[in-house]
């Protein structure tokens, strides 16, 4: 490890590794620091992604794919369900190996990677950020960097230190718990989503297959709702009812910022990517691919800035992100708000209406259009995005 780099990436999740990779490809010297001992572990994720999302970055490899899925099923409070038609396939990943591979790709592109390296502060002087202070193998070290990319997840502090407000409103933060269960009867090719106020208020519960009789069973509820009852309690109740005899292989907690992208994702020479920048699809809570897209754009822009020797160029990241995905997340955010107002009765009715559609017309779009008719106010919410 050197004492100075063009770009320092804090955090080696998918967003961080992708940022490191593209910055290195762009010609920058890159150091990526990971606070945990291993890249990819512990896994804090439902692990589902779309094929088309993944192939933008890496060829699918059986090594890090636990299951291939071609359908998803939405289960409404009265127990009825609908399987919307879906074009394309998806994967349930082995995130541990997937993240590992992404860091490997970054390393092959030229980035240096150091684990068990906890960044505890930025080196700041007269308002400018000159590097990071880190604890590496219990030694305090200072590393200089021209550009700092904060990919430090939902618990991000890099942004806060640089003066960017990354605090997530409790209405938008999803408090999550997940177990990996073995010995469960599941349909291997299908992702299950359970909705309802009694099952997962302000969120949903998922059952994602990870092999023949193994599944990730998890829940995300809004912190606002968690005031009354915690995520783990809802999850335990569901498992007790549905899979009372299953063995628990892993048990994890997590938080997902289902918000709009942070108002600022670049400040001077500090950039934020992934969960740290709230680059999560606010409806689905999915953040792997969108975080990687954020990471790619940030890495590319950082590389360009270094080559041109022009740090003002970093602002370009914000523009490109909003053009690529940020605007869409704003629309999704308004849709999420509308969905969160659905009562259990509305959800039941929605499912009933959707089941009346001919099978070939049961697309997410048409189901959603039906929902819009039921909730005209949602049209207004969406329209506002385009008018404002």
């Amino acid at each position, binding site marked *: 490890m050197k004492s100075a780099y063009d770009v320092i990436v804090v955090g080696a999740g998918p967003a961080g590794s992708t940022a490191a990779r593209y910055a290195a490809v762009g010609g920058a010297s890159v150091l990526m620091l990971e606070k945990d*001992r291993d890249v990819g572990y512990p896994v804090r994720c439902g692990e589902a992604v779309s094929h088309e999302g993944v192939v933008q970055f890496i060829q699918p490899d059986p090594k890090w794919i636990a299951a291939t899925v071609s359908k998803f099923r939405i289960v409404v409070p009265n127990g009825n369900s609908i399987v919307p038609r879906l074009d394309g396939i998806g994967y349930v990943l082995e995130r541990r190996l997937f993240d590992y591979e992404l860091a490997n790709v970054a390393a092959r592109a030229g980035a240096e990677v150091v684990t068990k390296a906890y960044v505890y502060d930025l080196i700041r002087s007269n308002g400018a950020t000159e590097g990071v202070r880190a604890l590496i193998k219990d030694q305090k070290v200072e590393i200089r960097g021209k550009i700092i990319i904060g990919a430090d997840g939902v618990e991000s502090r890099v942004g806060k230190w640089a003066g960017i407000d990354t605090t997530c409103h409790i209405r938008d*933060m999803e408090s999550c718990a997940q177990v990996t269960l073995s010995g469960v009867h599941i349909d291997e090719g299908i992702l299950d989503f359970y909705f309802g106020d009694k099952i997962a208020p302000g969120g949903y519960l998922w059952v994602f297959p990870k092999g023949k009789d193994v599944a990730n069973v998890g829940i995300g509820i809004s912190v*606002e709702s968690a005031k009354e009852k915690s995520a783990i309690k809802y999850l335990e109740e569901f498992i007790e009812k549905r899979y009372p005899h299953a063995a628990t292989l892993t048990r994890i907690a997590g938080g997902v910022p289902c918000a709009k992208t942070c108002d600022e994702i670049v400040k001077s020479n500090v950039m934020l990517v992934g969960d740290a920048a709230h680059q999560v699809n606010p409806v689905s809570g999915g953040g792997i691919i969108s975080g990687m897209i954020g990471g790619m754009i940030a890495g590319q822009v950082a590389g360009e800035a270094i080559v041109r020797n022009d740090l003002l160029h970093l602002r370009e990241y914000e523009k490109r992100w909003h053009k690529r995905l940020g605007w869409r997340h704003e629309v999704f955010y308004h849709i999420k708000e509308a969905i969160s107002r659905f009562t259990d009765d509305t959800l039941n009715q929605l499912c009933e209406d959707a089941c009346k559609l001919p099978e070939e017309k049961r697309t997410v779009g048409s189901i959603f259009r039906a929902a819009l008719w039921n909730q005209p106010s949602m049209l207004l919410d969406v329209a506002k995005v385009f008018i404002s």
Partner: protein
Amino acid sequence: MIYIVPGKCDFCGCCVGVCPEDAIELLESDIRIIDERCTNCRKCVWACPWEVIEFHREGIEKLPTELELPQG
């Protein structure tokens, strides 16, 4: 005051994400509340998926009201 039950935290960071005061320090397998910054707003208590963060009322004369709570 805010109290983290020893040995039970999963270090997931959900609490850090909602803390408006940057008052929680999270390492790979260590977490602590920075008392000087904590305002007892309790958002971390609600956020914790595993109910590991508790709020202990003793010794606190006045809690922030809804209006005084930091927004966000």
